[in-house]
């Protein structure tokens, strides 16, 4: 009863927003399109994106611009939801938002490393960090390299997390920094959810967070092991010591696996066997598909829990990723059927 009162407004809001998400028929329509402009035009005239696209000239929009707009749309959703909550749930949403901040930071570092970072780009990307009062955004936008940028992050957790890896002579600087950010996020989720949420909510949120941890570990082991042949000791040093449905010993077995067949065989003993089902689609895609369904299920099952916001936001992220996949598919002239394969949740979606 109490949770009904607590989540009444929020649940109503997310349910309304969920109703506006793209349906199967929208995707069917979208994959037919021949150009980015047609996609934008369709989104602008037929979907909830009409608001964010209203100022946009669909005949004259670049792929990068659209991606940026979509990202802004997600941020707007966060802001909307924040208006329906208070107290702990607010903090929880803020914590979910950290993921967006981290993705923006990673992008910024990559662009710095490639040497393309200019003021305009930084100002655009830094918008996603404007939640931090301590940050002087205009000053940050004027940074000329990663060191200066990091200096500007002083006062945030990110500075402390990134500082040890930032020295110029670190050959794997970009990798280390991205890894540090990911680990930071997963660890923060793990430690804070329990503190800020009621037991029932914490159980739901932690379940998702821990699956994320497991997947993070599995992916890391797989990639470093199979693709990059990293030393077992180094692989271990990046393992996130949070184990959910895959035991530490199983993970060690994975690290010692000889090849990808053995890896798949070991994994088939765990609930994550679905990652290697079938051939023609990637492990990452399979995971997204799995987690999308899980969120959808929770969203329906527990309307008056933290899931109403968590699952909604994750499903919205999936939608944005789908649109980007479609645009990329169109850009690289893939046939409709192959584009469809990249759309997450298409088969479990009702038309």
């Amino acid at each position, binding site marked *: 009863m109490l949770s009904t009162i607590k989540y009444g407004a929020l649940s109503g809001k997310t349910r309304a927003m969920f109703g506006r998400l793209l349906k199967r028929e929208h995707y069917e329509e979208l994959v037919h399109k021949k150009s980015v402009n047609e996609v934008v035009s369709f989104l602008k005239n037929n979907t909830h994106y009409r608001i964010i696209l209203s100022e946009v000239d669909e005949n004259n929009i670049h792929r990068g611009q659209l991606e940026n707009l979509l990202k802004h749309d997600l941020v707007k959703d966060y802001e909307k939801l924040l208006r329906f909550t208070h107290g702990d749930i607010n903090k929880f949403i803020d914590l979910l938002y950290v993921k967006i901040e981290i993705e923006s930071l990673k992008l910024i570092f990559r662009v710095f490393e490639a040497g393309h970072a200019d*003021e305009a780009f930084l100002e655009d990307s830094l918008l996603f960090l404007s939640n931090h009062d301590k940050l002087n955004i*205009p*000053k940050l936008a*004027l940074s000329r390299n990663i060191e*200066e940028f990091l*200096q500007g992050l002083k006062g945030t957790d990110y500075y*402390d*997390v990134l500082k*040890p*890896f930032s*020295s110029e002579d*670190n050959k794997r600087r970009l990798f*280390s920094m991205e*890894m*540090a950010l990911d680990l930071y996020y997963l*660890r923060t989720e793990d430690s804070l959810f329990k503190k800020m949420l009621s037991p029932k909510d914490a159980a739901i949120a932690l379940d998702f967070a821990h699956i994320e941890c497991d997947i993070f570990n599995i992916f890391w082991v797989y990639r470093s092991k199979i693709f990059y042949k990293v*030393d077992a*000791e*180094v692989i*271990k*040093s*990046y*393992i*996130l*010591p949070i184990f959910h449905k895959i035991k530490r010993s199983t993970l060690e077995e994975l690290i010692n696996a000889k090849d990808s067949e053995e890896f798949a065989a070991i994994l088939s003993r765990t609930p994550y066997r679905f990652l290697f089902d079938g051939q023609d689609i990637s492990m990452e895609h399979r995971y997204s598909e799995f987690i999308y369904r899980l969120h959808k299920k929770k969203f329906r099952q527990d309307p008056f829990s933290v899931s109403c916001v968590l699952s909604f936001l994750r499903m919205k992220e999936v939608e944005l990723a789908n649109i980007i996949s479609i645009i990329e598919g169109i850009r690289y002239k893939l046939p409709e059927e192959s584009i469809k394969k990249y759309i997450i949740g298409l088969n479990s979606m009702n038309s």
Partner: protein
Amino acid sequence: MAIEQMKYVSILGPVELFQEFVLKHIINSNVQLEPAHKTLNMPGLIPFDDDTSLDNLKKRMRILNEKFHVDVKRYDEQALEREVLSPMEPHVIESYITELEERIIEHRKRIEHLKADIQEREKIISQLMPIAGLKVDIDEMFHFAFMKFRFGYLPRENFMKQKEYLVDMDVVTVPVAEENETLWLAYFMPDSVSPVIDNVFSALGFTRVRISDKVKGTPESSIEALKGEIQVLQSRIDEEEKAFSRYLEEKKSNFDKYYQRVLYLSKVHEVKKFSSHTQGTFFLVGWIPLKDYKTFAAKLETMREIMLSSEDPDCVAKVTPPTVMKNKSIFKPFESLVTMYGLPSPTEMDPTPLLTLTYILMFGFMFGDVGQGAIIALIGLYLYKARKSALGGVMFYVGISSTIFGFVYGSVFGSEEIIQPIWISPLHGKDTINTLLYLAVGYGVLVNLVAIIANMINNTRMRRWGKLLFDKNGLAGLLFYGGLALVAGLSLLKGELLFSGLVLVVVIILPTLMIFFKEPLEHLVMKKRPIFPNEKGIFIVESFFELFETLLSFFSGTVSFARVGAFALNHAGLSLAVWTLYHMMEGIGGLFIVIIGNAITIGLEGLIVGIQCMRLEYYEIFGRFYIGEGREFKPVRVTED
């Protein structure tokens, strides 16, 4: 007491003179600009191109100014010629700024390095302390044949989370010190696995410090040497700081000059956004207060190339003039309370004087105390003079009012024994409670009537004849409410009910009908057709409820003022409590109670009374006549925004 009159000016001039003209006569001249292309209807008019060339520079200089603390200057014409208009290569400033920025970064790096060096040495010392007694050459310890040794630091959290893995590896870790989430440690490992283990530690964010590079000889002598080095490093930090502040001092005057130049020039670019031009002529339109207009026009008169034309606000259809309130200095602080609600639009009366008088009166009435009032006034005076806070001014005046009412009630710091009341003491005497409440309601009636009259004046100014006559806050309301008040007042005086057929017609029936048929009557007066709305049924129901609401709101709006009296009683009650406590505790304790009690009364009740007054002002008084949809006057000025 009113709103400053504005003049609408249009200026034409040759494009070549644009920059000079804007600098000398627009910026800092109390002129607010309107976008010319929106207001001027002329073919061939094009806006200037956006010039953002200085934006980046301005931002960078603003950040630099955190070091220099240079203020924005106002220049006269000669200074402008000299400082801003004199030609200068754009890249001069740019390279000057870049040099400054690099020096600042350099400085920061140097200091950081020096500090890191000191810290390193401190940690090495604490690493060496346990073996200080050994008479062995350190160098030898670090060059074993089959063992490798590393010393350094990493984030504590990273280490803790991987501790279990490290146990399985061929490595021995020895933590040395810990501070701010950073862990200093040493680790030993067999030479054969050292590349892998080093990789593991670098993945944890381990930064290695090479002890053997830093020290020679026995531990004891090394520690001595390191301590000496730390002292040297410390003095180098001091030197660097001094050199840096000398450097800043040296550069300050030039930076100041360039900063002003960039600020002024980028303001010109901002003005450009408002301006438009044809082939060779630029156009500027905007507002200037009437009092500044004369000197402005006279100045422009002497310039042959510039043409100025002006219009009164009434003749300008497209844009409404901005509002500048002009009030005597007593009223000035209260402008802030009006602005909080909304600026008066140019056709409205400025409600500041009315607000000032009613606010001061109400506050004193509700919170009458000689001592406490004086304290509020003194705090207010300090805030007003020293901090230039408008709220301080408000506090000063209401404090004085409170003091005066204190004499009326005979209350000093809540005690009613020190002086005799001039009039009544709220909680003493037989009927004082009722007298106060009635008086407050009477005051409310008066204020409501003034508000209705103010609304009628506003409607006259705006030529809304229908509203003037038939609105509940117009003539109809005045007849009804004023009439009833008059009848009630006179009846009270005479002691008998004064009522007759004439009174019934003028005070009740006529206004009721006026309010009921307000909409058609308004249409009739304003010559709008059709006079009656088509849906008669809806009209009647709506009108009935509106009438009902009107009567109710007159009643509640009047009774609402009873709170003014209630708070006067409340204040006396709170004071009584404080002094009762005082009498229960003798000596120092009692004094303590009185001081705390008075502080609470001033803080808590002062705040509540202030807020209640605001509520009455905004809701009961402003609600009747004030719209407050004016625009703020924003002249073009060079300031740190």
